[in-house]
């Protein structure tokens, strides 16, 4: 039961983008270990701006 609640919470965090920075850090560590990753505030700014370029909502 607890595991299910945890999985549900993970999905909610992923859906809302609350874990976007953690996922980005994982990606950086795995694929670009030589580069310094952005800070959370910097990353969030870029992520939000990218997310809203183009048609994102429909009727």
């Amino acid at each position: 039961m607890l595991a299910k609640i945890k999985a549900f919470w993970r999905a909610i965090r992923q859906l809302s983008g609350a874990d976007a920075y953690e996922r980005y850090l994982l990606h950086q560590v795995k694929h670009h270990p030589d580069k310094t990753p952005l800070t959370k505030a910097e990353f969030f700014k870029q992520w939000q701006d990218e997310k809203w370029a183009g048609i994102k909502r429909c009727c």
Partner: protein
Amino acid sequence: MNHYIKNSLWLLVALLGAAALGGIALNRGESINALWLITAAICVYALAYRFYAAWIAAKVLMVDATRATPAELKNNGRDFVPTNKWVVFGHHFAAIAGPGPLVGPTLAAQFGYLPGTLWLLIGAVLGGCVQDMAILFFSTRRNAKSLGQMARDELGAIGGNAALIGTFVIMIILIAVLGLVVVNAMKHSPWATSTVAATIPIAMLVGLYMRNFRPGQVLEASALGVILLLLAVVGGGWIDHHASLRDFFDQEGLILAWGVMIYGFAAAILPVWLLLAPRDYLSTYMKIGTIVLLAVAIILLQPSIKMPAITPFIDGTGPIFGGKLFPFLFITIACGAISGFHALIASGTTPKLLANERDIRLIGYGAMLLESFVAVMAMVAATVLDPGVFFAINSSAGTVGKEAAQAVATISGWGFPVSTAQMDALAKDMGEATLFARTGGAPSLAVGMASIFGSAFGKGMLALWYHFAIMFEAIFILTTLDAGTRVGRFMLQDMLGNIWPKIGQTSWMPSVIFTSALVVAGWGYFLYIGVIDPNGGVAILWPLFGIANQMLAAIALSVATGILVKSGKLKQAWVTALPLMWLTIVTSSAAWEKITSSDIRVGFLAAANDMATKLAAGVLPPDKAAIAPQLIFNQQLDAGLTLFFVVTLWIVIFDMLRVCSRHLAGKAVPPITESPHVPSRLVENWVRD
């Protein structure tokens, strides 16, 4: 053994679905339970998903689970990210489901509950879902390219430009009609107006919270925002009873329309994080929460449907919009059955998250099924109202008369009894001064939802439920309005940038202000005319939007059909060619009638000529004579736009047919642009179906 159990289970679903459909189709009694509609819908969706969608995925598109998707190949940890299929489903559904599936079925309920429901079911499983799934698949196979790019690559420059211009024009009409829906819900309603106004500072607060105060804490910020929104609904009730504040928020439609335009302009030039992004978070949570609540309430309460299965208005005399069942049902309900706009989300945006091609069935086909289900629930919420009440709310003053007594007499005369006392009591329950002539669908949907919620969770709070429903609709209508104006601005900057490169710089402030103002002026014009038109602008604008949206769907289906034929799947190309044919018939006949009909409630030109004759003869009252020239010009402009839509549609279809026939004759055509097969290396760490 297991095999037999599975088969008999599906047989049971088929039988239950057939019984429910038969029940609702053959019922001619007093009333029918809404649960039958829900049951029929779920059975049809389940069967279509299990068999038709699976067949298309396996045999027509031939999805390949071993093939790496763009999300995997271009994974950058930001916009290209392979994502769990349920999370992608959530994103995709939140992106495609806007106010359209709520408004369309509400308006189409004037024909009765049956035609609209059947079209929602059939249109979705054979048309809308197939379109979304096919476009998602083709875009995934082409590095997440947009619909416009695919049209250009696969059909040629004509198809590509048609898709681009079509998207721009549809956006303008869509924003205008949605703006009008909000204005009609707010006019002379201090409660609704103050609640909707409060959503703006709340969104900004949430934006500041997640940008500066606690960067990236989107869940915290959204929870705060949702609580503030609920308080705003309650606070609106307080303002409604406050002597001086009440007057401040009690406004004419025209002033509210100007307010919406100023808001739209501000939202297009302000940075996204301040207004657009936080508002979108709030609207997504509200949308999903309310839809779940509505489904639970309908299942718990099992309300009876009071609207007849089919009303006499199928002959074209309906008060909400003029025109016969064919073709106008099929353009009134676009979203929920088939919506061309979805192709813009299914190409470009969603493929960047898709982890495996196998998820295309769930995300492309499944999310559209869910949107169709939302539309069926909107149909239920509209038809559980007394038909007399439904028509009193949704008929414009120009159709049934300005005075309440006159309106109820007209509507009762059609055989849908309603009294002024009943309407006054209902308005009082809902905390409104009047509910007459609140066209656009949002108020009647809110009354329907409030009465469903009220009976399921306690009658004491009807007014709160009503304004909650209004706030819920307004918040995501305004999100579409923000986002649409912004996208329109980018598209315009892009197009004008071809003529004057400087204007194409998206960060050059004079260009931002100039193009934003142009886009707002575009939809603002239609909104303005819609507000001053006594016959209710929704009756004119919604069909125009429907035709535009179906035209975009036809472009998407043409692209899909062209690709299928070019990839040697001529025999299976009917899966997209069939809905394309139907849409072409529907859109062309609707456009033909809108242009040539001599019925002034259907034909744009007939209405313009009629008004011009009356104006010349001097028989119009002074207030109508003053606005008549504007209304005449608008009707002519609408006729021109309709012609433009239908000509664009035919150009794209001919272009597609030309490419297909050249391909079949072995002549040169633009080559298939599918990206090469790269095997997937992703470790599967979640359970698949």
